[in-house]
């Protein structure tokens, strides 16, 4: 399945929030939707989920306009919240029913997920008796219980301890392996790098960068080397174009990128080098570069 958002425009009042957003996500892959606060991520997600219509543009599934009665969405909103005073099982079943499940199926699915996330003991407790991390796991069930084709996770890892984060990672990987489209939105770049094959960065309602994450990284000019060495000071003093990098590494700018093999050999011969590789920007660097100045 291929989910395509084509050229979406949306204004609220005089404020143009989306100015021609286009994205493509594939089954069995995770897609990272990045952008600073107010860049238009939530609006894009809401239009995708048919909360309100776009002013123009369309959403296609395998080339045909999306049919919301066939494609199920699971959503973990960034602003978490369920009914604090209600029993967990009651509200989870209610939300599953609202996604179109029958009552007995809903109970079965919810129980399965409570078990899977180790929350069965809280089944008949009120939501507000749970800790924040556990509430978040409960909320995750609302996004997954009805086995949707598209899972949208907005900041899924915030507030989780490392053990729960690991559990969530497994669940996400499992969803990807099952052939779901997983749409990630997060500011924690390490998670995006870990899961997402392709990304899109939104800035001021426009996609400023999109595509395969590895390709994006490779497309950066490969004109710098990262050198880790016990002799950093000597390298900085003796090699032209060497500047201090992160974590005590040295960055060596290449005058001619085509000569990188030769330079690498040279450096390895002259100094006691632990590691030497071509510099690739981290997603963090890319994000700051593209989303840094909001229009």
């Amino acid at each position, binding site marked *: 399945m291929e989910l395509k958002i084509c050229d979406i425009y949306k204004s609220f*009042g005089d404020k143009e929030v989306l100015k021609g957003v286009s994205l493509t996500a594939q089954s069995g892959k995770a897609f990272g939707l990045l952008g600073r606060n107010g860049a238009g991520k939530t609006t894009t997600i*809401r239009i995708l*989920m048919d*909360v*309100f219509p776009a002013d123009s543009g369309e959403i296609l599934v395998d080339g045909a306009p999306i049919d919301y009665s066939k494609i199920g*969405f699971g*959503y973990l*909103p960034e*602003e*978490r*919240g*369920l*009914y*604090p005073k*209600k029993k967990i099982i009651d509200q989870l079943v*209610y*939300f599953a*029913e*609202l*996604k179109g499940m029958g009552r007995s199926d809903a109970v079965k699915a919810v129980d399965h997920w409570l078990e899977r996330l180790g929350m069965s003991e809280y089944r008949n407790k009120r939501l507000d008796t749970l800790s924040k991390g556990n509430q978040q796991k409960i*909320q995750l069930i*609302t996004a997954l219980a009805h086995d949707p084709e598209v899972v949208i996770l907005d900041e899924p890892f915030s507030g989780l301890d490392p053990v729960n984060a690991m559990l969530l990672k497994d669940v996400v990987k499992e969803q990807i392996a099952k052939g779901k489209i997983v749409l990630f939105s997060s500011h924690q770049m390490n998670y995006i790098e870990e899961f997402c094959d392709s990304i899109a960065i939104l800035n001021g309602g426009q996609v400023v960068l999109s595509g395969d994450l590895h390709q994006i990284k490779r497309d950066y000019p490969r004109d710098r080397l990262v050198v880790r060495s016990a002799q950093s000071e000597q390298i900085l003093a003796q090699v032209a174009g060497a500047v201090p990098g992160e974590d005590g590494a040295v960055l060596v700018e290449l005058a001619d990128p085509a000569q990188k093999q030769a330079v690498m050999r040279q450096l390895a011969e002259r100094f006691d080098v632990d590691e030497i590789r071509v510099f690739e920007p981290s997603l963090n660097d890319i994000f700051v570069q593209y989303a840094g100045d909001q229009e």
Partner: protein
Amino acid sequence: MKFFGKILRFELKNYLTNKVFVGITVFLMVALVLVLFFPRIAGAFDDGTVEETGDKPVMLVTGDGAQAVFPSFQAAFTDYDVRLYEGAVEQLQEQIREEAVECAFVLDGLTSYSYHVGNLSLYDANTAVADELLREVYRLEAMVGSGLAADDAAQIMGTQISHEVITLGKDQMKNYLYTYVMIMALYMVIALYGQMVATNVATEKSSRAMELLITSAKPTSMMFGKVIASCLAGLIQLVAVFGTALVGFQLNRDYWDADGMMASFFDIPLDLLVYMLVFFVLGFFIYAFLYGAVGSTASKLEDINTSVMPLTMVFIASYFVVLFSLTGDSVDSTLMKVCSYIPFASPMAMFTRIAMSTVPTVEIVISIAILIASVVGVGVVSAKIYRVGVLLYGTSPKIWDIIKMLRKA
């Protein structure tokens, strides 16, 4: 309206499992049962002897002519221990201050007196009774003085007039009580449940459950589900409470027959009950829709009270217009006639007029038709406000902003 049924069931279950809702309903039912069974229970304990009523307060009669009126005072003021008094007024006042005596009449002939009392109660009618007694004694003496035999004079004074009332329209005296109670019930239920709808919506918004709800169900289904669920909950409560009262009364009818007021209260004609139901449902919807819409524009629960104020004002104003017309015996005034066509006031105004006066059928039909049309209109507008409102966070929008949004929606 997808999932409307599921939302309705969920919302209704919320009410029916709510401890406060169940508690209040059961409390009212138990209280009514106790009240209605009271004469039966009291009767079981009653062994037929009339209890001694204890010490009655003392009333003194003194002055010029006290001897002549004393017997009739004694006969008229049965709640008092009426005594003749000979002595100074100062001492008498001293006794009143010391609360040995409650009140005293110091006569100055048969046509003038002063009434001495400690604290004058709001409901003290003693002077009115005394006026009447003195007038009677004075007239009797005057008649005898001008040559009439004492017996004849007494007979003339005591003549009784018999009369009979034939009601062609509504007997307002008989209908007054239950109309009053029904208007009260209508007011209470709409005010309470309307507020609850607004609070529920605002709670969903402030707890952010809304974020998830809007991606699952259409706002229209959510709002209609909520409003209709609370309408049903209100109806269930009304039926439970009034049903208990009715059954309790029927079971104890024999014990209450002596009490005309109680009997007239339960003698509600069936057609009036049907009107009650119609006006309740329509009146409920028109307010609950608006309360829901207003609730959707608030982002915090604290904002609710100020947001619903204008709506509550309109509602309270119509309630008082109806109430004052009802108690002020002007149910057919121009104001009431106008109000019975204004959708926000008509459920109470038209109902009162139907109950207390004779209203042409065509007027009732027009009023209900206007009301139904308004309910539909208000429902559509409220659903639009709701759809936009639930996604708005931050400061509550101004009325003008909402109108602008509506024009676009």
